[in-house]
């Protein structure tokens, strides 16, 4: 119940932040935290919800969300072999990688849909994504209830 409430509040805050800072994904740190502390089923359910939000509110045909969260999952899996996923340094590196991935994926989708690609605006959004991600992860990780972490660890 507490987990559901926490994720609900996180999602609502994420939507508001995305409306205030367009072009940046505020749910990505949530996926990382969920992967670390929650059951895989919870992460899958949350990712589907966030994907629907991103795809529905955006202007592209369905497809970006799958690639985006799959890239995040792949980067996390690869990074875990080399670094501690709980460290801020790792998350800062992940933020940079996400900023780059955002540019490449959006360019790919724009080409596939034959849309104009405003390079300067997208570069600014990538920079914001890279900078905001580790801060947001740090805040969310520290706000994530200990009770839920301990519960998941013991199981």
């Amino acid at each position, binding site marked *: 119940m507490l987990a559901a409430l926490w994720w609900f509040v996180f999602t*609502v805050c994420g*939507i*508001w932040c*995305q*409306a205030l800072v*367009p*072009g*940046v*994904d505020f749910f990505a740190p949530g996926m990382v935290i969920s992967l670390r502390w929650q059951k895989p089923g919870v992460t899958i359910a949350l990712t589907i919800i966030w*994907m*629907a*939000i*991103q*795809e*529905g*509110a*955006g*202007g*592209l*045909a*369905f*497809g*970006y*969300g*799958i*690639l*985006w969260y*799959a890239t995040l999952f792949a980067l996390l899996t690869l990074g875990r072999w080399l670094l501690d996923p709980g460290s801020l340094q790792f998350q800062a590196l992940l933020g940079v990688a996400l900023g780059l991935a*955002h540019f490449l994926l*959006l360019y790919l*989708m*724009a080409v*596939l849909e034959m*849309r*104009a*690609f*405003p390079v300067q*605006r*997208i570069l600014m*959004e990538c920079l914001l*994504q890279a900078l905001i991600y580790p801060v947001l992860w740090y805040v969310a990780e520290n706000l994530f209830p200990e009770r839920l972490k301990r519960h998941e660890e013991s199981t």
Partner: protein
Amino acid sequence: MNPKKVAIFLVAGLFVYLSLYTWNLRSGHLTRLSTYSGLDSVGMVLRPGKWLGHKGEGFVDRYVDLVGLKQQNEALQAQVNALRLENMTLRERAEATARLEKLLSFPPPPEWTRGGARVVAQRVGPTALLETILVDRGKSSGAVEDTPVISIDGVVGRIFRAGLKVSTVLLLTDPSSRIAVVGRDNRAEGVIYGMGAGDPLVVKYVGFTSSLEPNEILVTSGMDGVFPKGLPVARVTSVKREEGTLFMDVQARPLVDLPHLEEVLLLKRAAQPEDARPLWE
């Protein structure tokens, strides 16, 4: 992990993804599903906050910001008087036009109904590549794709994607926006292309011999089948004629202050019986 397994997993994943993507491009089922679920849930979250913000601003405007109200009232009164005078003249001309059209057996122009909508947000999320805004009207209020969206200053854009309670509006500044226009004074025809936020609009296909001057207002011509005729769209900022080309280089600025839009109007074509009168009795 076995590299062979990883490679197989990646290839299979890519194949599934591309199949899903191309199937959705053709059918649009997944896009529609995410519109009805994602777009509406975003609207559900943002609307209460926007409503509270609007009420709060109204309170401030009504009770606190009373400075200069008398002067503003006098200026507005003068403006109302000028508009009443202009309205009187225009009404005479409109009635004369209607009489002439009836005399010449013109079919009546299609009628449009208006409905107000509040702007819920500008672009939302990482996939917001297009220049869009979100408004709090959807299919449940009769808003569908390509519904014209205007404000009191002029054309804003058209509905790009409609959810049940929320819709995405493609702004006229987006590079994929096209609006057929005509000069209000000299009647030179062209098509307005968006060039991105903050950049001037480009008016293409204006004939080299056409008459079009800077500061002329461009209004919708109705030739695109989306917008009704006569809505103001943009003001011409520059006109260049270069030898050896068929068309002029024309730039324009939108009349609407798009980044600060709060309310818009959605237009809906009223049902009208088809005009089946013969041309000659």
